[in-house]
């Protein structure tokens, strides 16, 4: 005896799937909408271009924007070559061995570690041991270590999804391994690798705990890689945590969301433009 027939089970499944996705999507819109609703009125030219006054109660947030960009840039510039290089090593230059399994397992484990642990590591290694102090560089390098697993994994997936046929064509046309990677594999893996980098940027921009421990929270304009810095996420955290100004906290958060949005859209356009040329 069946309690429900196939058609009914289909209906029920469809309804459940609909409801879950509607809940998820609306939750997302509510959060973003709420932050933008609270924060957008604070955004002004002055807010974007001036330095904060009295700990952020007044004035703008320009130094935190610059700090965020600098820390993220350091992280991405360091993590991308290492991450993509490792991914290529794992996929193209070795066959599955104990060593590759250990590297892959380590990368996966690293991805699951809470960011505060990276912060502690960065504090001990970059800030104290390498004597870089609380600085953009320490923060950026710590972020680089933190996003490395993400970039390795996504790049690896992207490289593995390039059809073997492309490699065979390249080899059969007299390509060396390196020519094949650059000419046939990289162009096809590029969109996927970019996705990994965007995820990395997202994590850098949003990180607080690890940044406070390594880049500090000085509310000055960083004038070099060795200056201490306060990123937007940290600024937001301190404004809200210490009750300095919720209004400005929301303003900062809105800007953070907008920046991430711009980066995502920009990177997508870049990838699409690239893909359009080849398909």
């Amino acid at each position, binding site marked *: 005896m069946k309690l429900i027939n196939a058609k009914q089970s289909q209906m029920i499944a469809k309804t459940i799937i609909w409801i879950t996705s509607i809940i998820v999507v609306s939750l997302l819109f509510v959060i973003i909408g709420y932050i933008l609703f609270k924060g957008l009125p604070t955004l002004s030219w002055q807010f974007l271009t001036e330095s904060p006054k009295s700990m952020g109660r007044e004035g703008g947030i320009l130094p935190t924007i610059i700090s965020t960009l600098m820390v993220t840039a350091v992280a991405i510039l360091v993590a991308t070559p290492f991450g993509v290089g490792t991914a290529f090593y794992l996929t193209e230059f070795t*066959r599955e061995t104990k060593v590759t399994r250990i590297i892959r397992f380590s990368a996966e484990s690293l991805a699951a570690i809470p960011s505060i642990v990276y912060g502690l590591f960065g504090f001990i290694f970059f800030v104290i041991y390498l004597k870089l102090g609380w600085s953009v560089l320490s923060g950026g390098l710590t972020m680089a270590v933190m996003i490395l697993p993400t970039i390795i994994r996504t790049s690896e997936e992207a490289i593995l999804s390039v*059809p073997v*046929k*492309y*490699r*065979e*064509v*390249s*080899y*059969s*046309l*007299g*390509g*060396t391994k390196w*020519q094949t990677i650059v*000419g*046939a594999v990289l*162009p*096809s893996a590029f969109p996927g690798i970019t996705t990994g980098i965007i995820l990395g940027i997202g994590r850098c921009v949003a990180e607080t705990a690890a940044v406070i421990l390594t880049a500090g929270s000085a509310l000055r304009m960083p004038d070099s890689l060795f200056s201490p810095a306060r990123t937007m996420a940290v600024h937001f955290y301190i404004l809200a945590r210490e009750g300095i100004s919720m209004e400005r906290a929301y303003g900062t958060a809105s800007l953070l969301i907008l920046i991430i949005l711009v980066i995502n859209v920009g990177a997508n356009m870049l990838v699409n433009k690239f*893909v359009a*040329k*080849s*398909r």
Partner: protein
Amino acid sequence: MSQQAKIEIKNLNFFYNDHQVIKDVNMEVRANEIYALFGPANSGTTTLFRALNRLSDLDVGARMEGKILIDGKDIRSNDVNVTELRRRVGMIFEEPVTLPMSIFDNIAYGPRLSGIKDKDILAQKVENALRLSVLWDEVKDRLHSPALRLSGGQQQRLCIARILALEPEVILMDRPCAALDPISTYKIEESLVQLKERYTILIIPHNVQQAGRIADRVGFMLMGEMVEQGLTKDVFTNPKDQRTNDYITGRFG
């Protein structure tokens, strides 16, 4: 047809791990002929092709014994440059594999790998190759549009052009028309007959009739063994081995 042997295969045994896919095959292909190597699936034909331009080097667990000579030289001797060998022995795959780039870039891919950067030379090579593969008139106005937008038949002719741009000596074609419609197949077969004036062509036909239509000589492989080989008309009209007869007449396969 010249009588000189372009390719000689001597006592070739080929293994994937412990599984033997080619059993003691001897074979000779002369310059400027079309040699069709036919047989049902899993006969070892594709493996033999992959061994010929050492694409099988890339396969995990592949191991071969015996000798393959091209122009009398062992392709596995230490002083043979593999990439150079692959340039001389071009391979066309069953499914047309166009790289996700423009028509022009697809064909210029090989010449560029060999270090040619001059735009005029590349353009000339691309045009020549496309004319030889009878694709030029169809694509000359859209050389810079993506190759993946071409039809299946056009893509396969593009792949042929891509090989021709390297000016190889031998062209290996692994069921080049299996995924194509009859008209595209006809066009490709037509160009092959022209191409053999310049190149030595080995083809694994996707059916027996194709071998009969275009090949000068044929070899019939079954389960990794070379059952019979000889002039097409001899093998097709008067097969010596019962298995060849059964396969050609469609009793199995």
